[in-house]
């Protein structure tokens, strides 16, 4: 109030000053206008009014009228003269000036110059004033621009002035002493009037001013801190990939960047224009949260059922996302605020589903044993493999061991303990038995261990696979192979028996004939000791031959448990000693070319079986096709790593269409009575699996077929 009054007094004083100054300026303006309208004025030449040198360029500057010397005075000059003359008269000092001067005496002072420069730089053309001091006297200076008029050009045309230009100004300086004295008097009056009020006022104001000042600083600091913290929090929640919103009651108050991105709105305001609640976006699906959950609003429902997991389903584009949601309640100045976090678990669910599906398909489950807390975790598939109910089964390492077949328990436990010690992979195949149904399964387990920084194992992560079916099929396959091997062996045995029988018939016939001859001699009463001796010798010789063929026969069926260093040529010769006669009977010639010289460790009986099969096929093909000069050629050779045996005939070869099938089991082109269809299948099995070699068949260009067997020189080891 006091300050207002002081201000009012000040304003009053200034107004008086400005009005006074303006009045003076107006007078000056009128005078100058008048002078300009007459093109200046002529005055007698005196000491005070000498001819203006600045107007020397004008032809009629000086006139002589009635012996009086007159000189032209331009309006600015006239005005300055007047101002100079009358300063003392009413204390008002006027000054006409410009940046481009005709009269150097009219030069602007610092203030005037700054105002003029402002005009030249395009500052709006209007009056300017300033309260200042001239010496010790307070003054008001008012400056008014002079706008170039037509009359001005008489004197200023040569300077390039144009009508409308601001080319100078008039200023007045009004001493304010008198006006201020009056103001001080008024203020003094006011001061005495309000002395008491003022005193208390000052005290009061200064106290609160300081106080406000102080609290303002603190407030500002706090505000800055708050802004920083808010910015920090905002950044924090915006960087979270979870959708986070806050609600006051049922109104959404804040949404983080992830929430805006998911809902597809640029700002929360844009969202709120179309939705009242994020629950507008909740999909109506089973197990997914809805806006109203019975009596309760969704947020309240989540808070009311903390023991449950809550899922929200929302679509982004066409894709449905599933969220786990968590709600926290906060009391904000009496109002409930809720923080809701949506955690997108779609990907997780997807991968979990895939894993479960993959585990189910592969009959693989996984388990984890936490050794620190002795906690065992099984995936659903493990429960399924063990055939126990997840909800009812009391899972522990001990419970697991008890499910194992009694004969395998120690082995499994030891294998696991060993792997813990060695920290090597644990891999074991064992049987499990269902406690109630006693169903037996075969499982394969593997696991790896994870250890802490000190190298102590803290958990084991493993898989368990139900391989019952695989084992069963493997066994079936093995049995089938065994059976075919046996069949093939029987067939080969039959062939051998037939060969041996053929070989036996001759010696038996010879022996019988020897006996017949002895009987005949007796009948004819012509027993000669020499012929008896010859017959007996012959019979002995033949029985020896018979005995040898029995050895051959035994040899063939002697199971090859160990490999022998074998020269393949010898096996071929052994083969011909058996089938040779049969080939001869069918006029089949045999060519042999043995170039292999290195014995190799193989199962020689099995190789013999292969040779018999191939030669039998060759012989039968040559007979069946009635080849004119049937020929079987066998050859052996070797290189650095392999021994090669080729067996060729000059028959018709094999129809290329069935060439690929010749090794199929039970495939035969022969009459059922002759062929079993297993010969070549077993030959291939023996060569590739038992002898680790390769067998190939190729039609020859000149007709017939060649079988080539290559065997590794390093042979095979006994247990193969």
């Amino acid at each position: 109030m006091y300050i207002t009054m002081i201000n009012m007094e000040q304003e009053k004083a200034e107004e008086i000053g400005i009005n006074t100054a303006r009045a003076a300026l107006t007078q000056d303006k009128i005078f100058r206008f008048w002078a300009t309208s007459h093109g200046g004025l002529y005055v007698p030449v005196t000491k005070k009014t000498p001819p203006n040198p600045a107007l020397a360029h004008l032809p009629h500057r000086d006139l002589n009228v009635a012996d009086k010397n007159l000189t032209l005075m331009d309006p600015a000059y006239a005005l300055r003269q007047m101002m100079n003359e009358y300063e003392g008269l009413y204390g008002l000092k006027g000054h006409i000036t410009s940046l481009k001067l005709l009269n150097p005496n009219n030069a602007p002072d610092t203030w005037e110059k700054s105002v003029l420069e402002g005009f030249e730089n395009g500052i709006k053309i209007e009056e300017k004033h300033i309260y200042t001091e001239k010496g010790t006297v307070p003054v008001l200076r008012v400056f008014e621009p002079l706008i170039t008029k037509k009359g001005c050009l008489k004197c200023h045309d040569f300077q390039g002035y144009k009508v409308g230009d601001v080319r100078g100004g008039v200023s007045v300086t009004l001493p304010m002493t008198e006006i201020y004295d009056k103001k001080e008097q008024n203020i003094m009056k006011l001061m005495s009037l309000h002395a008491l009020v003022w005193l208390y006022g000052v005290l009061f104001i200064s106290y609160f001013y300081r106080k406000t000042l102080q609290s303002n600083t603190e407030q500002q600091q706090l505000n800055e801190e708050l802004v920083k913290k808010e910015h920090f929090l905002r950044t924090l929640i915006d960087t979270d990939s979870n959708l986070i919103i806050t609600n006051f009651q049922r109104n959404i108050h804040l949404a983080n960047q992830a929430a805006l991105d998911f809902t597809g709105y640029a700002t929360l305001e844009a969202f709120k224009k179309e939705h009242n609640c994020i629950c507008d976006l909740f999909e109506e699906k089973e197990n997914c949260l809805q806006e109203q959950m019975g009596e309760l609003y969704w947020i309240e429902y989540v808070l009311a059922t903390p023991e449950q997991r809550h899922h929200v389903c929302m679509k982004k584009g066409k894709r449905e996302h599933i969220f786990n949601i968590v709600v926290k309640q906060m009391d904000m100045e009496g109002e409930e605020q809720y923080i809701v976090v949506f955690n997108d678990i779609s990907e997780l669910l997807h991968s979990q589903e895939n894993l479960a599906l993959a585990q189910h398909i592969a009959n693989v489950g996984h388990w984890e044993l936490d050794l620190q807390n002795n906690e065992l975790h099984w995936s659903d598939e493990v429960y399924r493999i063990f055939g126990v109910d997840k909800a009812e089964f009391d899972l522990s390492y001990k419970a697991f061991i008890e499910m194992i077949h009694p004969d395998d328990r120690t082995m499994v436990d030891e294998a696991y303990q060993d792997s813990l010690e060695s920290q090597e992979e644990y891999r074991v195949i064992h049987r499990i038995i269902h406690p109630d149904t006693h169903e037996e399964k075969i499982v394969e387990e593997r696991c790896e261990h994870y250890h802490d920084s000190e190298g102590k194992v803290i958990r084991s992560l493993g898989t368990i696979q139900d391989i019952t079916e695989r084992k069963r099929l493997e066994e079936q396959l093995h049995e089938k192979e065994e059976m075919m091997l046996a069949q093939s062996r029987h067939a080969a045995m039959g062939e051998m028996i037939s060969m041996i029988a053929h070989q036996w018939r001759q010696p038996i016939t010879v022996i019988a004939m020897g006996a017949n001859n002895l009987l005949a001699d007796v009948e004819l009463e012509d027993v000669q000791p020499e012929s008896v001796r010859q017959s007996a010798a012959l019979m002995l010789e033949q029985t020896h031959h018979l005995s040898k063929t029995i050895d051959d026969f035994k040899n063939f069926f002697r199971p090859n448990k160990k490999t022998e260093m074998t020269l393949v040529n010898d096996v071929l010769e052994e083969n011909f000693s058996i089938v040779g006669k049969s080939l001869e009977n069918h006029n089949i010639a045999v060519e042999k070319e043995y170039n292999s010289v290195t014995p190799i460790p193989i199962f020689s009986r099995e190789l013999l079986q292969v040779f018999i099969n191939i030669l039998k096929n060759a012989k039968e093909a040559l007979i069946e096709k009635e080849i004119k000069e049937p020929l079987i050629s066998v050859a052996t050779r070797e290189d650095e790593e392999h021994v090669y045996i080729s067996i060729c005939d000059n028959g018709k070869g094999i129809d290329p269409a069935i060439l690929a099938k010749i090794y199929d089991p039970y495939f035969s082109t022969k009459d059922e009575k002759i062929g079993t269809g297993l010969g070549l299948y077993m030959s291939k099995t023996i060569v590739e699996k038992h002898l680790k070699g390769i067998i190939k068949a190729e039609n020859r260009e000149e007709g017939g077929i060649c079988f080539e067997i290559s065997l590794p020189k390093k042979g095979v080891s006994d247990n193969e």
Partner: protein
Amino acid sequence: MSKLQQLQESMGALKVLYVEDEEGVREQTLIFLKKIFKNIDSASNGEEGLERFKEKAYDLVISDLKMPKMNGREMLRQIHELDKDAVLIVMTASDSNMDASETVSDAYLKKPVMFMDFVEVLESMKERLQKR
């Protein structure tokens, strides 16, 4: 007089061809046959046997069946074509009767041949052979 001596007297002069590929068997059998027949030749396969028959009209042909070049069955068939009255005896190790039944022959002897069987077969052929 033994049966063999009787055969020796009644058939000793017949012209006999024996065909057998197996040398050991052929030798021993020839020793036996020569005790009865004075006029006997041998061949080691069907082809050779047929050639011999074409050279000389044999009264009796004793042959094996399984032989190289030409088997006994084919040889006997051709001999029968040449001389319907020639007596043909098969002597084979094959235990299949089918081999014999499909063969043109008058008698069948299974190897190993028993002494008495041989005597009986020859005795049964006595009448036919005596006609020649």
